């Protein structure tokens, strides 16, 4: 039993429990601790990260850094959609491209794919090994490096730091 992973899982479940109950009564907290311990005994192996590169403090700092970047990109994406939809000539030039990623862990790839789906003009079609297949609404460049920079450049370092 990997104690570190177990404790991390337990704490995450407990935070979720606190948010579900939105109460700090002693009964609720005791119940939450008991239940999250039980649940993490059974699921910590599949839920937690195997060998994270950074320690927990760095990961949390990266997570805090990641959230505003993500929200700004999401708002930009919506403004982008609005711009394209309202424009009478419908300026789109779609295509499906492949970019590679340096991220190793599964969760990091998942969050990268989700972030790409929610950022301007891109939609992740599939992830295979180290490649992401992306439907791009307006192909700005055919050069791989520029594509990678434009699509996943903002997230890769932060996500690599979190997971």
């Amino acid at each position: 039993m990997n104690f570190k992973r177990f404790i991390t899982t337990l704490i995450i479940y407990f935070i979720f429990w606190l948010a579900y109950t939105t109460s700090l009564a002693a009964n609720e907290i005791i119940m939450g601790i008991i239940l999250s311990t039980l649940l993490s005994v059974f699921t910590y192996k599949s839920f937690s990260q195997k060998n994270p590169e950074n320690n927990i403090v760095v990961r949390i700092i990266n997570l805090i850094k990641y959230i505003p970047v993500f929200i700004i990109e999401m708002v930009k994406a919506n403004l982008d959609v609005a711009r394209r939809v309202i424009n009478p000539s419908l300026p789109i030039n779609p295509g499906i491209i492949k970019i590679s990623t340096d991220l190793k862990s599964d969760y990091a790839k998942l969050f990268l794919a989700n972030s790409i789906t929610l950022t301007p003009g891109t939609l992740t079609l599939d992830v295979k090994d180290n490649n992401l297949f992306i439907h791009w609404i307006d192909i700005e460049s055919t050069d791989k490096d520029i594509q990678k920079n434009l699509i996943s450049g903002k997230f890769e370092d932060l996500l690599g730091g979190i997971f």
Partner: protein
Amino acid sequence: MILLTTLGYIMIILGSLFLLLGALGIVRMPDLYNRIQAGTKATTLGALSSIIGVGLVNPNWFFKTLIIAIFIVLTNPIGSHSIARSSYKSGLKPELQSEIDEYKPENIQDERSDLR
């Protein structure tokens, strides 16, 4: 307190505006993939901002709305990815103007046997 309430209502209105834009996008875009693009982004931010707005108007519910927001952010892109991928695999070709389609050679293996 009145500031929070006002902020909450502004966020709800903004959210509905984004949802409206998303609906417009779904009508105007030419093919399924572009429609999903417009739909996902608009519904995610629209639902997110509406639900957090509700949480700001009624602060007792804030953490619960935060949980709903986390679930939306996690599940919405997964769902749209799933729809896009399965329609590609079942043979719906995207309308491509520049003919760039690097996903094509990959679609031979592991066809998931869906309906029929």
